[in-house]
């Protein structure tokens, strides 16, 4: 599986990064590239560590995400991938380290302001509002843009109606983008699993985030559904320019989709680079082969 399809496009899309990582190129160029990479970084994690009781889920993790890239985070089960996303979205608070989102540094990201910081996410386990229709679930992704009070809602005053209309329009666009028209008015809980995953992506996309965190968006899907979902993720980046952090087990999908890959193992980052570099990294092979024997995990 190590030889799974490789996103050669990654090299073409971000030559500076690959050169920095490969340690080649003139010093001057590298420095400039590094500076511009810094300026372009939409997210930087420095020395992130968190433990639960005795379990160290993450220790001293650095991660830099450039604007417009698809940044994969892979690793065996329990490696700390979801913890990382939860720290970025403010649901967990790191014991150590800082999180810099679009130039703003945080020790703890305020989860209730996440949407306003331009960050949206999906969850490893579905986290939809079962009692709402597909359309209402998606529309809720723009709740952070609402200002009208409940009185304005009850009375149907102009501001409330204007907000409703604006959000309905954005919702329709996303419904069309993700081909959800035929189920838009159904209760979301009545949808098959794969479609629910898609609705969750829609709810995140409708917020028009700068940074999108996807925690295993294709887990449990059929091959067809996975390919479809991968297409949507790529299209979201290409058309809307959103930066994406993608956690995914399917190495084929990861290599094909991402520009750079970080590998976590037992809470440490053991490799970081282009798909090709990571694929060839002895530590990565070691980590994956080690677990593959034990738990017969998918992926490499």
């Amino acid at each position, binding site marked *: 599986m190590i030889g799974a399809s490789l996103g050669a496009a990654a090299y073409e899309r971000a030559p500076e990064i690959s050169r920095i990582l490969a340690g080649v190129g003139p010093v001057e160029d590298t420095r400039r590239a590094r500076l511009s990479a810094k300026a372009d970084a939409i997210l930087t994690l420095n020395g992130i560590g968190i433990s639960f009781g005795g379990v160290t889920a993450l220790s001293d993790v650095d991660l830099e995400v450039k604007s417009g890239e698809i940044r994969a985070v892979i690793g065996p089960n329990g490696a700390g991938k979801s913890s990382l996303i939860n720290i970025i979205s403010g*649901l967990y608070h790191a014991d150590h380290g800082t999180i810099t989102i679009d130039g703003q540094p945080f020790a703890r990201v305020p989860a*209730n302001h996440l949407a306003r910081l331009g960050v949206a996410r999906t969850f490893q386990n579905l986290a939809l509002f079962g009692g709402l229709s597909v359309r209402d679930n998606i529309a*809720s992704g723009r709740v952070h843009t609402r200002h009208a009070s409940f009185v304005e809602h*009850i009375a*149907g005053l102009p501001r409330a109606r204007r907000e409703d209309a604006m959000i309905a329009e954005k919702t329709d666009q996303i419904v069309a983008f993700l081909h959800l028209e035929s189920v838009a008015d159904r209760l979301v809980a009545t949808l098959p699993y794969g479609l629910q995953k898609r609705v969750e992506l829609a709810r995140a996309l409708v917020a028009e985030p700068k940074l999108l965190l996807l925690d295993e968006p294709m887990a449990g899907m059929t091959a067809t559904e996975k390919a479809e979902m991968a297409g949507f993720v790529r299209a979201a980046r290409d058309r809307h320019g959103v930066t994406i952090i993608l956690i995914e087990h399917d190495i084929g999908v990861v290599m094909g989709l991402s520009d750079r890959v970080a590998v976590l193992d037992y809470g440490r980052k053991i490799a970081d680079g282009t798909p090709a570099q990571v694929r060839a990294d002895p530590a990565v092979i070691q980590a994956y082969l080690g677990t593959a024997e034990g738990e017969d995990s998918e992926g490499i």
Partner: protein
Amino acid sequence: MAVQALDTARLPVDWAKLVQKLALPTALFVVAYGVVPAYASGYLVEAILLPFLALSLAAVGLNLLTGYCGQLSLGSSAFMAVGAFGAYNFNLRVEGLPLAVTMILAGISAAGFGVVFGLPSLRLRGFYLAVSTLAAQFFVQWALTKFGWFSNDNPSGVVSAPHLAVAGLSLDSATGRYLLSVTTVILITVLVSRLVNSATGRNFIAVRDNETAARVIGVPVLKTKLLAFALSSFIIGVAGVLWAFTYLRTVEPAGFNLDRSFQILFIIIIGGLASIRGAFLGAAFIVVFPLFLSRLGAFVFGGLFDSGVLDMSQRIVLGALIIIFLIAEPNGLSALFDRLKRRIGSRSS
């Protein structure tokens, strides 16, 4: 030409829809303001409709909090008490305060209480929250019994409800009290149904269904919960005013004990959580059921079926029904009603 043809072709459809949409409200309106005042017996109004209306309103209020926003509360009866005693005292101590203003102020007092006792919801969930709302129940009953001021230092603690009048028109008769009650209930229900279908209502549901996801997308979770407590308690407070002023005609702490809180919770479980119609169906059931049971018991067992036996059998049957509903039909009478309607619809078409 084409446009005109299209328009006229579409018009009859719209009319049909409009008629269909307005048929039920119109029928209800005619019954509420025409048929009932003209033909209902005193017994029907005093023993069935007045408690039904007050309990329906309380259930609408609790459903907003528990059914829509997912916050379990056992404090309903306390908020009814705050409303009832609030109204009594505002009416007593402010000369010439119009009835509507008295009721709104009573609702606001209950809302204030609701927010205070809703604060634990920011930390506690489900069963633990329910237990903490019990504090409201015990605190309010204690305060109302302890401080005679609330009952105007009446030695028995039981005070008569004041005269009811709107714009100089007395509403003390059974029909008058019924009209006051039904108007209040209709007004509030219309506002609530608009609320639950608005973005605010969807925030309630989001908090109920997945609080973490709600928080991350920017639903102001704390504000939403406290708003649910405030609005719910306001409505339950006004229901308390109706209960004391139009049904019991007395105001006393004992009328608002824990049993009443459970009764209102049972109404929304039996009627259907997160359904306004369910609140009314459940209340109708709870009011009519004991009467039905006592008639049936008297018919079958004759004199053996005294009030003690009635009370006990009522509790047993009700308890069993709640368990059955929770297991077999968590969406309550409202869902049964829908299914029945669909079956009839498919048969007739």
